[in-house]
């Protein structure tokens, strides 16, 4: 901050650290205004209260926190959200890993085409893609009709947890693939060749050479997908049919339908804490891998 207030004549005296600080200043300001300030506001909101009619009371009290934390439903929500998000992250990893590995090994025009195909879904909004899944998964949709044609009674594929898992897994796959690819830098094909020459089976080569070398990419992809899964709201809202209780959809209901802003803010702060925990776990995992 003070760097900006200094008169121009002292510009020469700014050392390398000063230059770094100066260059960091714009983004720090953007983050302060665009991220920090809203979070502080949210924190402040969680210490307000509402009257029974929904009217906001401008006080500082821990009443809302006490209610939220003592409600067993909150614990259900947290457990459910974390569990579902972890499961989706795992599925995304399993589904994306082979694609990323193949992409990493392909070259030239083919690689470009495949990359464009991977990135293309990101250019479409999650709402549109979720509606696409509704068309596929509904009781009169593609899969149900195909199963009926084969003489199988189709199970319920959406408006439940199954739908949320399918939809979110597909929607998060591009992020996972890109994160994996960015972490595959250390994977030199010569290592695999060496392993194979030294008599390792392809399976052993994969487990002992490829997986350890790609672990940082996996950690990054998992962190990204977990955070996106637990905070995603549109897809669960459209595909859960109101049967799955998740933190993000509950925050929406509290803020927009029930009008209890302090509760919504408190739940949002809990999500932020979960993000922090995920980040801490990631850092630890990375240290162990690297």
């Amino acid at each position, binding site marked *: 901050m003070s760097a900006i207030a200094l008169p121009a004549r002292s510009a020469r005296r700014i050392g390398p650290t000063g230059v770094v600080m100066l260059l960091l200043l714009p983004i720090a300001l953007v983050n302060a205004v665009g991220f920090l300030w809203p979070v502080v506001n949210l924190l402040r909101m969680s210490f307000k209260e509402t009257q029974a*009619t929904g009217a906001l009371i401008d006080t500082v009290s821990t009443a809302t926190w006490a209610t939220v934390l003592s409600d067993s*439903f909150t614990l259900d929500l947290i457990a459910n959200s974390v569990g579902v998000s972890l499961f989706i992250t795992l599925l995304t990893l399993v589904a994306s890993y082979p694609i990323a590995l193949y992409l990493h090994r392909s070259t030239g025009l083919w690689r470009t085409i495949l990359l464009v195909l991977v990135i293309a879904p990101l250019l479409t909004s999650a709402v549109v893609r979720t509606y696409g899944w509704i068309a596929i998964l509904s009781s009169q949709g593609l899969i149900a009709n195909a199963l009926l044609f084969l003489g199988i009674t189709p199970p319920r594929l959406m408006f439940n947890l199954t739908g949320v898992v399918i939809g979110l897994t597909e929607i998060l796959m591009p992020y996972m693939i890109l994160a994996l690819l960015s972490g595959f830098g250390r994977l030199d094909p010569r290592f695999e060749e060496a392993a194979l020459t030294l008599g390792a089976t392809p399976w052993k080569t994969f487990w002992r050479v490829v997986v350890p070398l790609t672990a940082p990419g996996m950690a990054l992809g998992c962190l990204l997908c977990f955070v996106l899964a637990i905070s995603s709201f549109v897809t669960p809202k459209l595909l859960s*049919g109101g*049967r799955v209780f998740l933190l993000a959809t509950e925050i929406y209901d509290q803020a927009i*339908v029930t009008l209890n802003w302090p509760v919504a803010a408190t739940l949002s702060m809990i999500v932020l804490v979960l993000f922090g925990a995920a980040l801490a776990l990631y850092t630890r995992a990375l240290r162990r891998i690297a």
Partner: protein
Amino acid sequence: MTHELKFGAVKRNTVKLGAAALALGLLTQAAAAESTVTLMAYSGLFQERYTKAVVEPFMKAHPDIKVTYFPVNSSAAMLGNLRAQKAAPQADVVIMDVSVSKAGTDESLFTKIDEANAPNVKDLYPTARIPDVAGVAVTFDNLVMLYNSDAVKEAPKSWMAMADKTYQGKVVIPGMPDIQGLSLVIILNKANGGTDYLKDVSKGIAAMVEIAPNIQTWEPKPEVYAPIVTGQASVGAGWNARAQVNNQTSGGKLKATIPQEGTVFQINTINLIANGPGGDAAKTFVNYALGPEAQKAFTESMFYAPTNAKAPISQDALDRTAVKFMDKVIPVDWIALAKVRDAIGEQWRRRVVPASR
């Protein structure tokens, strides 16, 4: 001759100048007297119909007042806007659900509407004046049972038809915290012998538990009407006004009925925002919106029941509202209900939703 020509030219110029001056004068006069009223109300179908039926005729009758419609998709989001603008309001009038306007009243966001600032208030039905709410009712709506006329040939007689095995996976109800789910709990609570919904709704919850296994979704999107029109669902619960419009636009595919257990009213209030920029023009608009002409036009356009007892509404439109079925309307005190809504929601979450899994 030259003189004459000159004179002619001068005359023509004078006429032109005069006309221009006159036009300019009119324009500046209009600009000087014109005030703007910003109306915050529901987006979508409501905006489209309300603009045609009320806003445009109002502006025609009051050329000096311009009404800007600021669409918002829910009452709660409107309150959010008003809270954010409390120091410097950007809107003058807001149309929102009664329980939300109670919250707004308690936060001192509104100026009380009465006979003094809106004389048409005197002609409103008694139920249109809600104690401890600054605004007054501008539309009445009611819960109806919706059905797809291809899948269901005869109008269902009871709400409990939704528990019928034939409708497995074909029932759509906007579940709690939406007030449509809440309304259904109250109707079924009374039908099953419940006496005071403010104290105990266990009988209504038990009835919902019977319906729950048939539910396709508790969150029909974009609204409950679309899946019934397309046949993706066969029966459901929704609001009458939108159901009637969907009945017309779908060529009768979607039909609505009030079952024997009855229905409840949903109330939209019109509210004057305290210190809005429009000043007295806002009061003129509120008075017009409550007047017989606007009430008639909007009821005939979107089939909300009128709140003005003197609105001369056509029989055809009245038949599509709950006015004929007043004996079937269960009185609900939405303000008192708001206080127990969380507790009812808790039972819904613990008992009704699990029964639908």
